[in-house]
Structures are given as structure tokens and as C-alpha cells.
């Protein structure tokens, strides 16, 4: 079956946006149910550092109060980093894919999007925030669940999966950087880096708390948590698990569908797997964690650029801009100028 390059790109980004919205919603849900932020203080300021959105944020707000940061990451539909934007963008991609994806995928996403449109300021208030983000998270899960149970397993589904896995790997890496971001923004949530409460929060944000407890019944320390989320092969949100699956998907595209252009991406995945292995073996992983995360995130950006070039009809030499959200709009402009 023919798969348009544009449709492959749209499947890739539809999944990425859903996964991104789910991760963001879960982080905010967990931190607001366990955290101590009030509307006026700077308890959420670290989110801006975590996602490297300092410039965009400064264009809209002067102070990183909790109210502003939450508005920015949840409600602002014109901010490419917000949950609302992600869902809208996922839906826009899905809309162009309606002739391809199962009706149930579209209908779920469209209804979900309509429900989000109906949310008002009271839903983003400190009091309602955890509940709102919980609803959003479940809406995203539902979309991924419908995809899992209905999406036809062809090249298109492989690109959907690639988007999902790359975004998930990126989000997990960022999550491990929360402490760094908090320290960098001068607003530590309290405690030291060895604080077990903090690491429990991180595990919950990755929906990995129960699995970690069973895996490491004798307790959490930063090194164990970092290795669990980076290198555990059975944890579905670990970086290693994502890489392993990305590799399988790319191999499938190359062998089963004869798409030899997958080679470049496979080489990048090899680099990532090697780098990750070295990092996991490093006794000083915790000390170097921020640099490791930075390196991993950079390679993922390169992987996206390589995929765009090999499959989505992007010109070479296209360098990755600040966020993947921007990449997409640039990609679309780029493709337009080709025709």
C-alpha cells in the first residue's frame, strides 16, 4: 500500500504530540498532587527550564509564577509547548489522516479535543489542576490504546510508533533532569539530590513507581532510579526500552518494506545504544546525569532530522530548531516550496 511521505510525517507527529501531552499532563498531575506550590509562588518555575522554553515564556510572561507557568504549559493554545497546543496539533494531523487511520482513532481524538476546548479558567486553577491533568492524561492514553488495538500494521503504523517512542525517550530523559532544572532555576523543591521523596515523585511521573518498588525493594537512591529509567529493558518508559523498539521498527521498515533509507537512522540508534550503555555503566552517572541527558536529547533531535530527510521529503542540511513543534511547521513549509 502506498504511503505518502506527508502522511508518514503526520502519523509520526500525531503520536509525538499525544505522547508529549500525556507526559506533560502526568508530570503536572503528580507534582500538583504531591507538591506544595501555590498560585503566587515560583513552585513551577523549573518546568520552563526543563523544556528549555525560556525564550518563548519570556515573550508572554514576565514572572514565572505558578499561575503563569501552568497557564503557559496547560491552557495557552498558541504556545507550541502547551498541552492544549499538542492536542490541537495531534488532531490537525489526524484530520489529514482520516482517510487512513481507523474511524475510532479519529472520533476519540476529535471528541477529546472538543472536550478540551470546553475547559475554562476554573479547570486550570490550583485546586482543579490535578484532576484536569488526570482527565487529559487518560484522554491521551485512550488515543494510544485505540491505536494499539485498531491501527493497521503497515509502514504508517511504524511511523506512528517511531514518533511515540522518540517522544517517550525524550520525555523520560527530561524527567531525569528535573532536579537539575530545579537547581538551575534556583527553585529547588526542597531536600538534596539524595532525597528519596523527590525520586519517588520522579518515578511516579514516569508511571514507574510500582515497577521500581518491586525491582528495587530495598529502597531508592538516585543512581538506581536513573539506571532504572535509562537502562531497564522491561520498563516501557525507559530510554533503553524505547531505543530497543525504535531499532526493531526501523529494521522492519528496512527489511519488510525495503526502505533502505532507514540505514542512517539505524546508525544513529546504534550510537545511542552504545552511549547509553556506557552511561549506565558509569559509576558517577548521577554526577554526570545532566550531561548524559543533554547528549541523549541531542541525538534524538538528530534522529528526527534524519527521519525527516530520509522519509518525509525534507531537504538535507535542514538543522533542527529549538523544539520539535517548530520542526513540523518548518517541514510543512519546506515541502510546500518543493511543489
Amino acid at each position: 500500500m502506498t504511503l505518502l511521505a506527508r502522511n508518514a510525517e503526520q502519523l509520526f507527529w500525531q503520536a509525538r504530540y499525544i505522547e508529549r501531552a500525556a507526559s506533560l499532563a502526568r508530570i503536572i498531575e503528580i507534582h500538583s498532587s504531591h507538591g506544595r506550590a501555590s498560585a503566587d509562588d515560583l513552585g513551577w518555575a523549573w518546568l520552563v527550564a526543563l523544556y528549555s522554553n525560556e525564550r518563548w515564556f519570556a515573550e508572554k510572561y514576565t514572572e514565572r509564577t505558578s499561575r503563569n507557568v501552568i497557564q503557559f504549559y496547560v491552557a495557552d493554545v498558541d504556545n507550541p509547548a502547551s498541552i492544549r497546543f499538542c492536542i490541537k496539533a495531534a488532531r490537525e494531523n489526524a484530520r489529514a489522516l482520516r482517510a487512513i487511520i481507523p474511524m475510532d482513532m479519529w472520533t476519540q481524538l476529535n471528541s477529546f479535543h472538543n472536550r478540551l476546548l470546553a475547559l475554562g479558567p476554573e479547570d486550570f486553577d490550583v485546586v482543579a489542576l490535578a484532576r484536569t491533568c488526570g482527565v487529559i492524561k487518560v484522554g491521551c492514553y485512550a488515543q494510544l490504546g485505540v491505536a494499539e488495538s485498531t491501527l493497521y500494521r503497515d509502514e504508517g503504523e511504524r511511523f506512528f510508533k517511531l514518533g511515540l517512542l522518540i517522544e517517550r525517550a525524550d520525555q523520560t530523559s527530561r524527567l531525569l533532569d528535573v532536579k537539575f532544572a530545579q537547581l538551575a532555576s534556583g527553585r529547588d523543591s526542597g531536600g538534596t539530590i539524595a532525597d528519596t521523596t523527590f525520586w519517588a515523585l520522579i518515578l511516579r511521573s514516569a508511571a514507574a513507581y510500582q515497577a521500581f518498588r518491586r525491582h528495587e525493594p530495598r529502597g531508592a537512591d538516585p543512581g538506581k532510579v536513573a539506571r532504572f529509567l535509562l537502562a531497564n529493558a522491561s520498563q516501557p518508559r525507559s530510554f533503553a526500552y524505547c531505543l530497543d523498539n525504535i531499532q526493531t521498527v526501523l529494521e522492519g521498515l528496512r527489511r519488510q518494506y525495503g526502505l533502505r533509507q532507514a540505514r542512517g537512522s539505524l546508525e544513529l540508534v546504534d550510537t545511542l545504544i552504545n552511549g547509553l550503555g556506557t552511561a549506565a555503566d558509569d559509576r558517577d552517572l548521577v554526577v554526570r546525569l545532566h550531561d548524559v541527558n543533554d547528549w541523549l536529547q541531542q541525538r534524538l533531535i538528530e534522529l528526527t532530522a534524519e527521519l525527516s530527510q530520509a522519509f518525509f521529503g525534507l531537504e538535507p542540511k535542514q538543522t533542527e530548531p529549538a523544539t520539535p513543534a517548530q520542526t513540523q511547521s518548518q517541514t510543512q513549509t519546506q515541502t510546500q516550496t518543493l511543489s
Partner: protein
Amino acid sequence: MALITGSNPVASESDRRLAVNRHGETGEPVAKTLGTLTALKDPRQAGPFDGYDPKPYYCELLGTDRQPGKALVAVWQRLQALDVPTLLRRAADAERELFNLGITFTVYSDKDAIDRILPFDVIPRVITAAEWGVVEAGVIQRVRALNMFLWDIYHERHILKDGTVPAALVLDNRNYRPEMIGFDPPHGTYIHINGTDLVRDGKGVFHVLEDNGRSPSGVSYVVENRHMMQRAFPDLMQGLRVRPVSDYGERLLGKLIDVAPAGVAQPSVVLLSPGVYNSAYFEHIFLAREMGVPLVEGRDLVVEHDHVFMRTVAGLAPVDVIYRRINDDFLDPEAFNPDSKLGVAGLMRASKAGHVTLANAVGTGVADDKAVYAYVPRIIEYYLNEKPILPNVETYICGEPEGLAFTLKNVETLVVKPVGESGGYGIVVGPKATRAELDAVRAEITANPANFISQPMVALSVCPTLTPNGVVPRHVDLRPYAVTGKDTWVLPGGLTRVALKEGSIIVNSSQGGGTKDTWVLEDGTIEECGT
């Protein structure tokens, strides 16, 4: 612990109802003999049709004698057994569902994209097998004649040379495309997808109001309206033999494969859309989905050595047939509007080289022009030597002296239409216009007579339509869709558009129109459901 087997012994009320329904024993009583409306209805119960009075118009359900014909009595009875609040509640459910399913068109403002549903009326428009037989034959005849006319005017021009149709009307028409002269489309088919707008007069006779041979839209609503009715009113349709519409995509694909360039074993068909910002984008999605073909935009296609390719993940893949939903002007910046960003450079070259088939062909706009329309009955007789099965509405051509004089003299009783427009724009309805509007249109006609035609007011038929105040008569038209490859197939029914405003005869969705499900009954429907 007892093992749970079998069913719950206490069947709920709804279980029981389901069980009975399955045996066909519930539902409304169906009269075995036909009597008057009073005899048909349950005197103890108020029905939604109690105050319904279509006079003086022809009613699609009750005809002229205000009583359903034999074939329609079952439908009438079922509707009558519902009450207005129930109808309204189910209608609201249906609209919400259309919205969540995304069966919408999108209105773009500066900042927002607002999804709107096309207003949908839940009372179906029903056409009997006998009535449909006439419509179907008439549409096939008309499409055949128009395709022969197009072949002729782009080849030998017999019909122009012998003066049956004025040459200037065709050759000076802005929709006549000299690029098409001498080009032979496969099977001589120019108009592959056609929509014929029909209206019914006071006696119930169907007339052709307009031909749409360029890129007629609306067929997606025909199929989706049916799905919606099946979900919202399964009881209304149960046991009735309504002809299906859901195979439109397969039929269309079959016809498009018919016209693929010769020698292509497995033609690759695509649907070319202007993109997500087009208000009809939902329909493009629908058609691509139902045909199972890629939905492409101009940027997905490229022409190399007069062959068309699409950009896929595996590189360039050949394209043999393009169902294009982009107007001629924007189709190919190389051949037509050079500023078009929607089209594909070189498409006309590839088409003329016979390497790709465009559906509809370029240059069909001259055949569905409002001025050429007046000549279609003559065109039918000219090529087919047959009388038109579906008559035109009487038409005065202002470009001709008699037509102009008549129009200017009687403008207050006529409907005046500019010939270049579509979508109901620029139409002046004489009997409903103000004195100032009449003066203005008289001046416009005098200044540029060739730009106008006029027609007498047709007393458009009405169909029972649900409003918050109950069931009321509203004017409707009908657009059957014909698809042509080697030969023509007509989708049973078509799009019924309804003017939701009281007294309005303008049914276009852009001007307050809605749609209805259109049921074509099979022969023997009444016997089937009466037992």
C-alpha cells in the same frame, strides 16, 4: 457458590422490548387497507403531523391530495407515532454525534477554526421506486448528451456550425478551454462525476434547475446522513426496503478505473484536494477513505517527463487517475493561473499526453454554464434523437433579444440569475425583492444582458421538516449524483437540500440550507413491511 449460567431471570423492560422487536411484533400498527389520514391515525394520540399543512405546494410525503400515497403510508404512520419532543431530542443527539464524528465543514476566521455541522433535518425525504425510475433515466440521458456535446465542441463542432447552439455562447465562454481542442478523453467521458439539481413543481413533476459538471460536492452528506439516520432512527427504517447508498466509493472507484490511460494494468487512483483549509475537506477525506485511495495535495505530486508521480516514503510512485477537487484555474500553474499554489505544474501536459486521466476533465464548465443550460433540451434531441425525460425549467436568455425584452418587462415575477455564479449567489427572486432591488437588477441586466438568464418562479415542492414548533413544510430540491466511466451509474436518491427558513427557496448551505436523508424505496416496500 452457584455457577452463573444462562440469563438474568428478571429481564428488564428494554430486554423485553428488544426481544419482541426481533420478532417484528412491536412497532406501530400498519393499516392493511388504505383509508383517509383520520382513519390511519390513532385517535387517542396526538401526532407531529396533526397541524401540518403543505398547501398550496406539492408535498414530498403527502403529494397534492394531502394524504400519503400507497407506497409512503408506512413511513407516514411511523413518523406520526413519534411525538415532537422525542423527535427533537433524537435530532439533538444526531447533531452532537455529527459534531464528534467530525462530519463538519470548517469556517476559518483570523484566529480560530470553527467546525460547523451542516444542519441536518431528521425527517427523511422519500422517493418511490416509480418516481426514481424517471429521475434515474433522465439523469443518465442528460449526462450522456452533455458528454457528447463536450466531445463535439472540442472536436468537429457540428452543433455550433449548424447553429443549434450559438457558437459565441460556447467559444467565448470563459469556461471553454482551448487547451482541450482535439484531445480524446478515454471513452469520450469528460464529466465523470455529475450532480443534477432538480426541483419539483406544484404537480410533482421533476424539472432540471441546474447541471453541475465541474466538481459537484455534497455526496458525502448523502452517505453520512444515511448512517446517522440508521443510528438515530433505526425504528423508522426497520423493515422498509430503502435502497442503499453506502457503496458510492466502490462504484466511483470502478468508474475511475474504467477511464485510466490504456495499457495500465493496475491503475493507481488518487484524490487531489486543495488541502485542510478547504471548506469541503471533510468530503475529500470521505471520498478517499471510501475509495481506499491516497488523499493527495498539490505538493505531494510531481510531473516528470509528462508522467505524474506522488511522493511516498519509498520514493516516487506513479499516478494514473486523478479525481481532482481543484478548479481548472488552479489545477496547473503552468497551463492556467500561474499563481496557484494548490495545483501541480505540468499536469495538463501529462493529461494531454494521455499519461494521466483527470476527472472531471478540464473544460467541462462550459457544459454546466447557466446560459448553455437553456439549450440542453435541444442538445439532448440533437445527439440522442430522444425527447428529454426530465424537462428544464423554462428559461429566458437575456443575451437573446426576445429573452431580454421579456425579462425586463416581467422581472418582478421572475427569478434572475447571473450566469457565472454558483452557490446561489447573485440570485434575485422577483416576487420577494424590493422595488430598489428590482430597479438595480434591471439596470445590471441592461448593462450586461449576456450575463443573465431568468426563469419563472417554480413553486418548489415542500417536505415535512422538524422545527422547535413542530413539523412544518419547507422547500426542498434534489441533487442526484451520476458517475460515468464507460457508462453511467446513478446513486439512488442523492442530496436533498432544504431551505430551513420559512418561505425561502434558496437551499444552499452557504445561505441557511440544511440537508435530509433521501430514501429511494424499492418496489414492493409496502407489502414487505405490512406483514
